[in-house]
């Protein structure tokens, strides 16, 4: 056994921790991707283009944060695309009925509606103790069915929506799009919550070992329920934002989005097996995926290759993740405990 070195080098330790972290490698990948794209086409770094990137990724970032919390508890939420679609459509319908509703009120309604849908997932999973993948696959169909039944092919146009609501989708504050600021606020709030509050750490405990969490007295059911409610609420927020951003709405908004959201979290280092990962990572993963979609056409990659490239990138990122984990494991082995 190697001798023990418990003393750390405080001065540079944080740097080592940072560069070793999963978030850092995603960030690095993002930087490299942008650098390569800019080298090929400098306009990729123009003010307009940066604004576009921020706007494009904001919805996925918000959803990925919710998904990260759910995945950390060793569950998964496949219904987010349908929740987003249903709230987006509801937003349009509500504005048609109440054209004078303040934008803030609409955001609150959207979040509440999403939270309610998420709570349905959460209740089924926590109370009936059934696997999340199955339940949310079921509600993916159900929520979308409700959306379809409600819409009956109806289309909502920008002219149906108040101008100040549409401004939320396109407007900026000090040069930053509102949507990006909302997304940033969501990421920071949940990032701090998960890292620094007891109640936030419990999500990790559950994902790491449910049985142990029960023995520690953590109310697992309630906690899992709240993870799904959060994910639903954020998808609801995403739905309202979607309505503001695109203006044209039908019942198909967000169809198939769930795989992107899960992919964003996974690329960002949130382990499917639970207990590992941060919302920062998930958010970076979302930005990376969106940037790839934006960068590939700019780089002149044939449209037919784009999807394949995204697949390759997802695979590359999880392989990298595995490599980093193995390295850590090896480090732990060299660094053992008992000096008995």
């Amino acid at each position: 056994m190697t001798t023990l070195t418990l003393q750390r080098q405080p001065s540079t330790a944080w740097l080592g921790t940072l560069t070793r972290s999963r978030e850092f490698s995603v960030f690095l990948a993002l930087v490299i991707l942008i650098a390569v794209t800019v080298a090929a086409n400098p306009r990729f770094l123009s003010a307009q283009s940066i604004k576009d990137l921020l706007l494009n990724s904001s919805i996925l970032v918000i959803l990925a944060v919710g998904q990260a919390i759910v995945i950390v508890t060793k569950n998964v939420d496949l219904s987010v695309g349908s929740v987003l679609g249903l709230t987006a459509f509801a937003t349009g319908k509500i504005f048609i009925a109440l054209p004078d509703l303040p934008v803030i009120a609409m955001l609150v309604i959207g979040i509440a509606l999403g939270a309610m849908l998420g709570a349905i997932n959460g209740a089924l999973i926590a109370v009936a103790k059934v696997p999340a993948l199955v339940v949310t696959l079921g509600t993916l169909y159900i929520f979308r069915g409700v959306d379809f039944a409600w819409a009956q092919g109806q289309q909502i146009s920008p002219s149906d929506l108040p101008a100040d609501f549409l401004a939320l989708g396109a407007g900026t504050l000090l040069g930053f799009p509102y949507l990006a600021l909302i997304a940033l606020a969501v990421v920071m709030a949940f990032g701090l919550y998960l890292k620094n509050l007891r109640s936030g750490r419990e999500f990790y405990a559950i994902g790491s070992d449910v049985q142990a969490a029960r023995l520690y007295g953590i109310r697992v059911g309630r906690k899992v329920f709240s993870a799904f409610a959060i994910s639903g609420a954020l998808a609801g927020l995403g739905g309202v934002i979607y309505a503001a951003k695109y203006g044209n709405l039908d019942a198909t908004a967000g169809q198939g989005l769930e795989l992107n959201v899960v992919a964003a979290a996974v690329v960002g280092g949130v382990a499917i097996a639970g207990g590992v990962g941060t919302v920062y990572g998930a958010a970076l993963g979302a930005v990376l995926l969106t940037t790839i979609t934006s960068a590939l056409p700019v780089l002149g990659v044939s449209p037919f290759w784009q999807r394949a490239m995204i697949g390759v990138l997802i695979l590359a990122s999880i392989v990298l993740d595995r490599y980093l984990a193995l390295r850590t494991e090896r480090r732990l082995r060299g660094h053992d405990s008992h000096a008995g």
Partner: protein
Amino acid sequence: GTTNTSSTAGGGAASSSAAADPNAPIKEGLKVAFLPKQLNNSYFTVTDRGGKAAVDEYKGVFSEVGPSEASASSQVSYINTLTQQGSNVIATSANDPKAICSALDEARSAGAKVVTFDSDTDPSCRDLYINQATAEGIASTQIKLISDAIGPDGGDIAILSATANATNQNAWIELMKKELEKPEYAKLKLVATAYGDDNAQKSQQEVQALLQAHPTLKGIISPTTVGIAAAAQYLSGSEYKGKVQLTGLGFPSQLKEYLKNGTMKSFALWDVEKLGYLAAYAGAALASGQITGAEGQTFKAGTLGEFKVGPNSTVLLGEPTVFTAANVDQYNF
């Protein structure tokens, strides 16, 4: 083989080989089913609305069925169901020209008349195709609109299409390329074709990429309603508004904002509701024995008046309408 035997057994139903009786009355109680590419697609919601209006006029039984995602295989299962239910008329827009053929054959052998609209199948597996506008007309209109919007100096243009597999999109793109070879469009240069998959976000990202990859881009043609709406929405909020021209095929209701705020000058579309209306009447005419689908036959389509079957068993609705800020408020679809 089976076609002949079963159609004689079917009694009154006429087949292509039987003689047409232009004066036969439209039968009452015809079961007319509309099977669009996809339900909940605003385009088909409007066509089917037109179809229902027509079916109600001639006292038929209207139904609308279809998959929630555009795929040929699920259309097949719906065609099978309709066959089994004994539908008299199936009006469909094909997700794949070939894939639904054998199912349609089976439906026809069971006595149904098949009318395609918007997207045709192989001509051998339907009775009639209602063409919304000639593909040449659609292509030349869009090229003309973009050329007019950009102005005499011309420049680079790009196309934002739907999915890479969309049959009619691809046909129009080919014809647009041909159109661009004409001398009057010598200054227009098609530099790229992108696919937005009829998804708002993807379409916007493709537009952004087109603009970055081709800084000299002057215009974008998007011959798909989802793509053009997403592109207009993006351009209207970006620095390119008014500098990069946009045209294509879109709904007046979705795009009137952008005509008025100067994002775009014009776009085109046929009267979508009438397309469904005509398809429903054509189906009734077939099922009632007024026509068999042979070239030169005529039938009356309610308030739209008389139509004549053209070559290849095709009926033409008309030419696309061009919408501008001046006329857009007159349309409600």
